[in-house]
């Protein structure tokens, strides 16, 4: 079973790495932000798996914090940092 | 090599990256990013070197890193405010060519 957990972790990590491609490519800021959101979720998943794998309950707290704060950056993006479309960030 | 070794070496790499970013990047926001990355690298070395020990992880570096993270966030916040203020005053978010020719304000 632990091997499964670890394999799952590795898989999720690889998954995460693939998602990075979207962050790099964009093309719009929204896309990048979406990818970040996916990261957060994946990280929560990884943490939960690891908590189970290592028997470290505290990692669930970490996951909880992630889950709680996942929205903060995205909201900050939407409310503050999302550039107007005429800005160069959003040009494909 | 243990896993901790990976992280310690990654920390070294982050330090190098941070240094380089700090040196060659002009934009202040990026310089602040570089400082943060540099700091993360140092923290990684600090904890990573502790490695897996028989007596369990050494809590002292953990405490030190937590302290360091708070310092980093404080400094980053201050740096951001400074950068914004500077950009408001000079129109540029960089330090380039802004030799203080004019006198300071009395």
């Amino acid at each position, binding site marked *: 079973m632990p091997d499964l957990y670890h394999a799952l972790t590795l898989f999720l990590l690889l998954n995460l790495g693939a998602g990075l491609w979207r962050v790099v490519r964009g093309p719009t800021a929204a896309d990048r932000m979406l990818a970040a959101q996916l990261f957060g979720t994946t990280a929560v998943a990884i943490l939960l798996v690891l908590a189970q794998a290592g028997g470290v309950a505290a990692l669930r707290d970490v996951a909880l914090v992630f889950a709680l704060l996942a929205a903060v950056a995205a909201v900050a993006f939407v409310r503050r940092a999302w550039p107007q479309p005429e800005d160069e960030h959003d040009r494909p | 090599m243990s896993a901790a070794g990976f992280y310690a070496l990654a920390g070294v790499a982050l330090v190098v990256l941070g*240094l*380089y970013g*700090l*040196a*060659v990047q*002009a934009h202040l926001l990026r310089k602040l990013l570089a400082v943060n990355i540099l700091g993360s690298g140092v923290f990684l070395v600090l904890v990573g070197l502790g490695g897996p020990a028989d007596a369990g992880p050494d809590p002292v570096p953990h405490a030190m890193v937590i302290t360091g993270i708070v310092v980093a966030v404080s400094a980053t916040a201050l740096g951001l405010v400074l950068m914004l203020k500077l950009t408001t005053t000079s129109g540029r978010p960089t*330090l*380039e*060519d802004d*030799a*203080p*020719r004019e006198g300071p304000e009395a």
Partner: protein
Amino acid sequence: MTELLQGIGLWLILAWPLLVALPDVYRHLPQPWLLALAPAALLLITTDAATLDMPWIVFGSGLELDSGRRWLLGMSLLLWLAAGRLAARLDPLRQPATFTLLLITFSGQVGMILASEPVGFLCFSTLLGYGFFGLLVQGGGAGARRAARLYIAALILADLLLFEALLLAAYLQEAQRFAGFDHRLEGETAALYSGLVLLAFLLKAGIWPLHAWVTAALRTAAPPARLLLMGGPVVMALLGLWRWLPAGQGLEIAGQVCRALGAAALIYALLQALRRPQPARRPGWLVLALGGALLLGFGQVLAAAHGWEGAAGLVPALLALAGLLPALLLWRQPATPAATLEDEPPWTWLARVQPRLGRLHRRLLDGLAHLRPPRPLPPVTASSLAGSGTRVTRWPWVIMALALLGLVLGLLA
């Protein structure tokens, strides 16, 4: 008691004229001229001989009045009285300065006469010399001024030579009195010493071939100066020769030189006097001739090993006479305007060369000036402002990284 009085008297005849010479004093005295000379006259009449030793003055000075000196003192009194009369006729604007200078020269003259040792003699000769320079310049024409320039050049040179001679003598024999000079001068040093002294006093006396200033001065200077010329600087210079050179020591060479120069001067002066028809010129040549004659005689004495003692008493009297004689001739003669000068002084080539020398010298100095140490700190100017200010680029970061690398690698190596 009398000694004290005499001492005070000796002092007074020197100091009193100097005091009166101050214009502020002079102006407030009745008959200042006579008053100034009075102590000298009084002393001359009342005292035969007097000495005053002043060990704390300069290098231990002394004043002395003896029979020989009385002759000369008398001459001086007469001459200066006459000169005072002449000066009184001058342009009132010039009178005060002339009187002052006359009194200064008088003091110098009397001091030289009375001095009992060479340093004192030298001191007073300075007083006389520079005072007389003033007299020549004062009230004379352009010719007189030129003469004065020549004179002062000769004077400075002569004083220097005398200073050297004196140093030599003092070094050789630690004696600073005239009396002590006689003995230990020997060989080359003796020749050097006598050569220095001879040259110095010949310069001061204006003997041929160094006579240019004398003739010029006699033609163009103001009357009082002309009157004093022979009895003042010239005679005093000859007196100096007499005092400074150890007569009777068999200084052969010095004697020969003196004789030769004296004869040449005599002949030259006589020939010139005969060649020039103008009577106004004659006193000048007479003075020259007289000087030459005196020198000739002096040379004789100098060269003689013995037998000059008899002449000793005569010398001052002779000098006094020589001082008075031209004065008599010049008494009423007017000065010649400088414009009519026909014979240039023989040193005129110097005047032609001098500018060139001056240029050369100046060039040399310019060269030297460029060798000065580097300029002081550069001043701050507008242009230096524009270029400065800090310029902070990224390179320090790179350097820092380099240094970091160097440190780390250096330590690991």
